[in-house]
């Protein structure tokens, strides 16, 4: 399963406030959120990103707030995936939960510029920058996260457990005293 798309190169520490400013968090509509995506980074960016394009960024992409609206806004633009050197942890979980694929790759961002054409193999994590003629390898996901992705995110994972009668669930008042050994 490979995807070919055009790169948009962003910097380090892109935070969720510039991905989707809080003033727009009065809706959960992906189209409305997408229209304001990256607005405080570059007010014209959302209108220039095309479905199938790929975001390439540096360290700590998605730092800051826990707003799931951030990956929803990026997905709402039709962005195929994000490739960054590293991700902030809440953004990382949120993106997988809403079905926005993320790849962690140390060296691809070094050579990639906006406009480069990338080919991403989601199965193997192999990424080719066709414009620069370079090949890169994304870090593999932990096994448990691969199962979550295969299920379609945490909600689908829970739904499947409910449907199959295998849901493991805590009961009301069933915790007893917290902590302890």
């Amino acid at each position, binding site marked *: 399963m490979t995807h070919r798309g055009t790169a948009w190169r962003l910097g380090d520490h892109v*935070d969720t406030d510039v991905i989707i400013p*809080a*003033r727009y968090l*009065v809706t959960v509509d992906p189209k409305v959120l997408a229209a304001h995506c990256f607005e405080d980074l570059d007010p014209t960016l959302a209108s220039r990103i095309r479905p199938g394009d790929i975001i390439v960024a540096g360290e700590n992409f998605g730092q800051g707030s826990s707003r799931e609206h951030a990956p929803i806004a990026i997905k709402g633009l039709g962005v195929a995936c994000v490739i960054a050197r590293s991700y902030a942890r809440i953004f990382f979980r*949120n993106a997988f939960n809403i079905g926005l694929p993320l790849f962690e790759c140390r060296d691809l961002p070094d050579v990639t510029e906006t406009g480069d054409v990338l080919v991403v193999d989601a199965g193997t994590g192999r990424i080719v920058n066709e414009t620069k003629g370079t090949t890169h390898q994304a870090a593999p996901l932990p096994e448990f996260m691969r199962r979550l992705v295969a299920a379609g995110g945490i909600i689908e994972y*829970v739904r499947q457990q409910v449907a199959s009668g295998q849901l493991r669930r*805590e009961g*009301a008042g069933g915790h007893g005293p*917290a*902590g302890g050994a």
Partner: protein
Amino acid sequence: MTTTEKILAAHADLPRVRPGDLIEARVDFCFANDITAPLAIREFEKTGVGTVFDPDRVALVPDHYAPNKDIASAEQCKVMREFARRHQLPHYFEVGRAGIAHVLLAEQGFVLPGEVFVGADSHTCNHGALGAFATGVGSSDLAAVMATGRLWFRVPETLRFVFRGRPAPWVTGKDLVLRIIGDIGVDGARYCAMEFAGEALRHLTMDERFSITNMAVEAGGKNGIMEPDDVVLDWVRPRARRPFTPVFADPDAEYARVVEYDTSRLEPVVSAPSSPGNVVPVREAAGVPVDQVFIGTCTNGRLEDLRVAARLLAGRTVHPRTRMLVIPATPAIYRQALEEGLVKIFLDAGAVVSASTCGPCIGGHMGVLAAGEVCVSTSSRNFVGRMGHRESRVYLSGPAVAAASAVLGRLAHPDEVLGKTAAGVGR
């Protein structure tokens, strides 16, 4: 094991966990706010589970856009309110009884030492000051917790920060955590637990301790945590809603890194625009003209923060070119500030004192900045556009620096207002 590892192991029914382990743990308490709850509720409905795992262990708090700023935010609060009614959730907080969730839930004894606490809000790490494992998640993860009472975690490595000595005058908990973020960077603790320890903590009030764990996320941390010493236990026992068992690190706990600070040699700092990691001593930034000063938020909207600010403002006025907002984080703090005469000091100085809300911190409502404006804020984030126009600029500080800056109309060290003979914060 470290404190964090022991809490997670106990909640996963495992004798031992190690950093990097993926575990599924029981969650003792969870919450969402008016921005994250509508999404979480939509995702919760999709699971087909029907009821929340335990209505007594779920809180819903309208704090971001409440009191509602417009029709859209009113609709979001309505979604949350109606869900709470439908599921008979006892811990929905209506406007007037609601405050900033992190401050409110700790104040009312919902978060306890040794517990696992999850919130759909990144500053949930706030509660680690109580010796709990507390971490922020997105709406879908929170929906899964509401459905099952469980969530998966990767066990984090622990970085240990040891505060030595007695903090120098005007060095508050906020200055300590900003110093760390400045030193290790905004991703210096990425995916890690940040454990704070050392005898200097004995000199900090609980309010100051919360400011430290609150900002663990600004260094990329999964959680911030402190051992529940007797300061914590004295604070939490009268409030606790459930029995609890404090958890302490093993003597042979392994830390990925240990960093020590001599707090007697530190000085008040600010995070200059536009990153919490852009930390400089306030003396180096002093002089920058300030349009707005904001004292409030889950980081620094507690009673002790208001007391420190009032000490600087008593008998003085806010500079003519500056406007000042004070937002007590909860109704109880507001009431206490009123009874102690702090609200009168703020009003006499020309500040506005408002109902509890996150509002200005996220550029949401009240105190939104125009292009080119500068704000000194006791909040936790100063990213581009965070408090308003993308060309506005935010300096993060503790309450003393913020109040001094309000008096002088420019970024200022508290000594510039009270003189060097003042004892600093009240310890």
